[in-house]
């Protein structure tokens, strides 16, 4: 059965080609897509159900019970912010459901500091041909499917 990976934020699907960081745009850590979030304060939510395996203010990884790891990165080069502007709402080791809020932030504040708030959503270590049903570029609401991982 394929895993449906949901959008962690409401915004606009732009694809990895819309990301300025080559680590994501050339799929070095895996294929996926990216969502440019709406510029309103909100939550970044788990894209799948599973265990919160890694959590940094600017990125997190949820691993499903069958071992699929999905990375959500909150903006590009946002490690520079040293956690400022990100409120963690969960902890490493938590079991989370798809849609569980993980981090609260304000994408407009990130953009105001000169950084891109675009959120890559990556199927870690997957082969590109395992992803299907990719969402078209355009509006997406939090929880809407971005792609399925076979």
């Amino acid at each position, binding site marked *: 059965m394929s895993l449906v990976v949901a959008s962690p934020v409401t915004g606009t699907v732009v694809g990895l080609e819309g990301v300025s960081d*080559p*680590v994501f745009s*050339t799929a*070095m*850590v895996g294929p996926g897509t990216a969502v440019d979030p709406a510029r309103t304060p909100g939550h970044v939510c788990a894209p799948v159900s599973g265990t919160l*395996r*890694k959590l*940094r203010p600017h*990125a*997190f*990884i949820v691993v499903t019970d069958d071992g699929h*790891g999905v*990375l959500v*990165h909150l903006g590009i080069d946002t*490690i520079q912010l040293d956690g400022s502007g990100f409120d963690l709402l969960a902890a490493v080791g938590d079991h989370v459901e798809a849609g569980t809020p993980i981090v609260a932030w304000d994408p407009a504040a990130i953009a105001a500091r000169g950084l891109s708030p675009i959120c890559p959503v990556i199927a*870690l*270590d997957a082969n590109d041909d395992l992803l299907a049903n990719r969402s078209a570029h355009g509006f997406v609401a939090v929880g809407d499917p971005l792609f399925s991982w076979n």
Partner: protein
Amino acid sequence: MDPDSGTSGATSAAKALAIIEGLGGAGNILEIEPCITRLRTEVRDGTLVNEAALKSAGAHGVSRRGTIVQVIVGPEADVLAQDIEDQLE
């Protein structure tokens, strides 16, 4: 060896050594910090960094800007960074 499974003690330590070599050796590394999927490092001399060696050590890719070198290693970055710091001590 499957490069994606290198998180066990021995293979991770070997990988750490190979990455130190690829970065131009312990003396060339000023700082190393794990991000979620990458090692962010600052080196003394960027010309000593060997991308091919880093890739054969298991890196998915290397991105550099002068003396700032990012080695993309996947989610085990924090384990590797710890192993590298242990080796550098």
